[in-house]
């Protein structure tokens, strides 16, 4: 099938999409946007988190066809040119990035949290990020990064 989808503000088309493909697969393998990650492909880790019509979703759980006509915003669409989004900059500054495989998903999840809750409490941050696994950091520096971003 042919898929029409707006990604990071740009109208995109993918041809020969097999019905079983996920939105994550189409983004990564057909649209040249591998920033969203594929750590589990079963909705458990959050590394594939993207905005779908403004709501964060696990793109591995979205069938490509479900995104037809939708707006998708991925981690690649958060920075303005060279200017990182405050969440991205805070992750770098706070040392919240080690291997970084969880980072794209966490950045999108934290970005969404701060849009909804400008000054989140620690329990609010923890709850918002509970769907995103990180194996490297023990989350301490990730919490620091979100706290830092909230002040910026």
């Amino acid at each position, binding site marked *: 099938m042919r898929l029409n989808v707006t990604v990071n503000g740009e109208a995109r088309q993918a041809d020969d999409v097999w019905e079983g493909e996920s939105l994550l697969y189409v983004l990564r393998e057909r649209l040249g946007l591998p920033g969203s990650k594929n750590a589990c492909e079963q909705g458990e880790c959050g590394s594939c988190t993207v905005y779908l019509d403004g709501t964060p979703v696990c793109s591995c759980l979205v069938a490509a066809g479900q995104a037809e006509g939708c707006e998708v915003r991925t981690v690649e669409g958060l920075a303005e040119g060279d200017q990182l989004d405050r969440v991205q900059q805070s992750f770098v500054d706070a040392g919240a990035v080690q291997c970084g495989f969880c980072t794209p998903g966490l950045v999108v999840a934290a970005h969404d949290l701060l849009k909804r809750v400008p000054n989140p409490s620690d329990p609010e941050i923890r709850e918002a990020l509970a769907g995103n696994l990180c194996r490297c950091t*023990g989350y301490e520096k990730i919490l620091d990064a979100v706290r830092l971003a909230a002040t910026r």
Partner: protein
Amino acid sequence: MTSPTRETTKGGVGDSPLRPDGTLKVRGEFAYSSDLWHEDMLWGATLRSPHPYARIRSVDIGEALKVPGVYAVLTHNDVPGTNLYGLEHPDQPVLAVDVVRYHGESIALVAADHPETARRAIKKIKVDYEVLTPITDAEAAVGPDAPALHNGGNVVRKVHIERGDQHATADVVVSGVYEVGMQDQAFLGPESGLAIPAEDGGVDLYVATQWLHVDQKQICFALDLPTDKVRLTLAGVGGAFGGREDLSIQVHACLLALHTGKPVKMVYNREESFYGHVHRHPAKLYYEHGADRDGTLRYVRCRIYLDGGAYASSTPAVVANAATLGIGPYNVDNVTVDCWGAYTNNPPCGAMRGFGAVQAGFAYESQMDKLAAALGIDPVDVRVRNAMSEGSVMPTGQVVDSAAPVEELLRLVKERPLPPATDGPLDLTAMPGGVSNTTHGEGVVRGVGYAVGIKNICFSEGFDDYSTARLRLQVINGEPAAVIHTAAAEVGQGLVTIQQQIVRTELGIDQVTVHPADTTVGNGGSTSASRQTYVTGGAVKAVCEAVREKLLKLAVARFGEPRSELSAPDVVAVLGDDVIEETVEWRHRPTTALDPDTGQGFAHVQYGFAAHRAVVDVDVDLGLVKVVELACAQDVGKAMNPQAVLGQIHGGSTQGLGLAVMEEIQVSGGKVRNPSFTDYLIPTVLDTPPMPVDVLELADPHAPYGLRGVGEPPTISSTPAVVAAIRAATGLALTRVPVRPEHLTDTQSPSA
């Protein structure tokens, strides 16, 4: 005593400059091995055994070959070289021949134009198995009656250590039998890589690994190609923790690429990842501690059985670690240790953060608590009474010849103020059971537990452990600029940052670029054993010294007089249009093998120590545990990058927490029952508590900058501290990790 360094360089040693790859990673633009793409590339897939032990009568690939879009279906017949690989002993077939020895063993490969096509073709391969009865118990496997799984029997390695009186007695004796379940590294970036066939008949492989050169060696052996025909470049690595030290897709992807003449990408999904790498050895440990009434240890005797699974991997070295570190960071004159690594039909086990020291650590720390309870002594006091220090003697006879601040680390975590009881407004996320709303505090009991651990740093037992660094220095845009090149794998820990820091400090220049790690430079050794900052850091320091020496010689010619220091403008003046390039191999001081009869020897380069205090809340009705706080104190010799040091301690502590209360690959009858993140749980941000850290910097005079490897020690003491806290809350014996809810309620008692 620290080697002399220039203290103040911005972004140098001791500072925490930003990671050079951080911006790419937060933008989603860092190229991980699973992100690679090539024009015209194919996708590879692997057929794996559904049986833990079976004879293969036949393999029929006919139907798979007929699937449209399939380019190749390969079996062991297509392996051109020796169909074996392995880190220490090549005993694992690249593709199984007539027997499979574990659930998930590779049998055949497919390359196709879509990953789903490849997976469907895999399902069309027909294998006729004669299912055999698996051997699944490590202790039984090394016993006299077990049938041999490999020529030479089921003992991968046995280490015996004896020191002092082998028949010592004591006033108070405590004994226990402990079990450690099979933990998974669960790095987030799946095994993956891209193999590109080259015109010279060789292959270029881009892969996530921990050790490029040992991969290269094994690939050459299997493909029957010389080293210069197999070129590896490190692709972005999404975590490792030991799980990438053995081969996964490496030989398979190269085989498919060479066979089809096309680039081949392989990416495991999460289920296949659980089959595709080795795990932490499950263990059964029998301990007996004898002590005086004041708590002074008289003797320790133990027997440790480590389940190596179907193939050797790094089991021999894990056995040595568990044995030599088997009694923990304590002074004991009379020690007997027997440690076996066994072949079984369980999944192969090898390297995981802590590497043998974790299993022993759970047992000896549980014993120290048991001893404290038997004597009515405070658990920290009994540890302090026996704590080793600089000058102490290991069971191997090795004198610990740098700081061993075991007592101080314990005091640091003990003296920290305790977190307040949860009494304020109800925050469900702080309760056992969390937002499942299983309790509002009723039935919840708090406990506090302590543990301390010891880990060897770098490779041991006489291994020629070195790294290679190449540095190129020239003037670019009027500034001196360095390119540092090693084959050492950045896996997330921040080695790339450390390399830049060392060059800045040693040469006093700002612009330092880290060249991608590849096999065009010499061996960097493994990113394991907490060794890269030590060994590759040592190599980078050494190559800087070589470059500086050259610069100083040139400076004599340029300035007509010798100088001891050169500023950046001096370097520019000296260099002009010249380029200086130096390559240096650097080794740490040598170690020796263990005596085969007594286990005595100077086996380890360096020891690292960490202590934890865990505070837990346990819902005793439901058996749910919430770790409230996990404080750590660790000696790092020199905090090369304080922010990265904390990152290692937090991450390591959390993996230890995972082993304590949730992480286990469930294997029954040799079959893996939970190969997914739905069923194999790793700590989320809600499971992970605040982790305050005290860092000591007691320089090791033998190490570059006095540093001590950081990555592993926190993974060792974290697990027993959490379990000690649960014991304190519940009064239960808890002899097995992970502790499961049924161990805490009456529904099922712990196994021992």
